[in-house]
């Protein structure tokens, strides 16, 4: 019986030790303010440039990032057009600047990471944490790859129907990253 008990204790101790690097780990919040933006399909579409390395919380852990625990794009979307829009967010690596809509949504262009969000003509939809986080869905895996590979990317908010025009106010990108040595 004593041997069995010792075995149980040894097993638990071994399991704890083999957990290894997970002992030195944590969940860190990174917040990037993106500001305001006007989007109009009649012209090249401007994006929101997310520069995670500009934040110390990201720089301190960028080589140890393992998971994206949660993420949200906060702010509000005001539809200044005359018809309803269905907004999605596409991600393109780096600071890619204004791009034609066709380039953003082409298979070789951006990757859809968020949406859809319907905004009626003249209406404003507020993006709080819970609402926005759910709209990332499977886009989280794309974002995790980007966050691991440098964390500099551009988010384009576009509608599946054209023409569209809307304004984004007080946009903020917030990610909770899981890091372990």
């Amino acid at each position, binding site marked *: 019986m004593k041997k069995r008990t010792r075995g149980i204790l040894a097993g638990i101790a071994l399991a704890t030790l083999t957990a290894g690097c997970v002992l030195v780990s944590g969940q860190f919040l990174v917040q990037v303010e993106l500001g305001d933006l006007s989007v109009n399909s009649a012209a090249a579409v401007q994006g929101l440039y997310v520069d995670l390395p500009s934040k110390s919380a990201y720089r301190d852990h960028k080589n140890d990032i393992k998971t994206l625990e949660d993420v949200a794009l906060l702010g509000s979307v005001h539809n200044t057009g005359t018809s309803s829009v269905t907004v999605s967010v596409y991600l393109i690596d780096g600071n890619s600047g204004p791009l034609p809509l066709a380039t953003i949504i082409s298979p070789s262009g951006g990757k859809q990471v968020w949406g859809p969000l319907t905004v009626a003509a003249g209406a404003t939809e507020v993006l709080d*944490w819970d609402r926005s986080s759910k709209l990332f869905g499977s886009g989280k895996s794309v974002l995790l790859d980007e966050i691991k590979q440098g964390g500099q990317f551009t988010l384009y908010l576009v509608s599946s129907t054209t023409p569209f025009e809307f304004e984004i106010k007080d946009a903020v990108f917030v990610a909770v990253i899981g890091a372990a040595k």
Partner: protein
Amino acid sequence: MKKILVFTSLGLALSAQAAGAVGIGLEAFGGVSYPVVQDDREQGGMWGIRAPVNLVPLIALEPYYARANYGDKTIDTIAGSQTLEGGYVSSWGLNVILTSGTPVFRIFPYLGVGSSTDDHPPTGDVTKTVYNLGLGVGFGLPVVKLGVNVRAEGQMIVNGDTSRKFGNLTAGLSYTFLSLP
């Protein structure tokens, strides 16, 4: 000198009695759980139940269930104040306790392993292995079979390459309903 010998002998006798005792107990406990290096939740209350079983000298096996409800995390952004729900963690498992001391006072380190569900909206729930490592002190009233136990515990939920860690401080009221010498 005689007094010292008498008290030492009494202490050793009680210690031997406690070490050799066979017993089954039940303990209800409550306390506080502190997330460790987790930017997305605040401390919260916890409660649970434990059932220590002494079958061999010096060692007790203790099945347990515990639940902790964490406080919401508020972050300030240019889009306004945002609330990240703290969620809850429920766990069940088995601790192995090394008992030493007397029925009146004892100190007991322990190790444990179990299954833990971390429900953290809006991400959803994740069920993973949990490890416990703690130290407790117990004060007993053997005549009425009641005791009070205070514990400090580290808890780690392993999720892939990373983990979530908690520091728990609890106090419990125990009742020994079967005790054989």
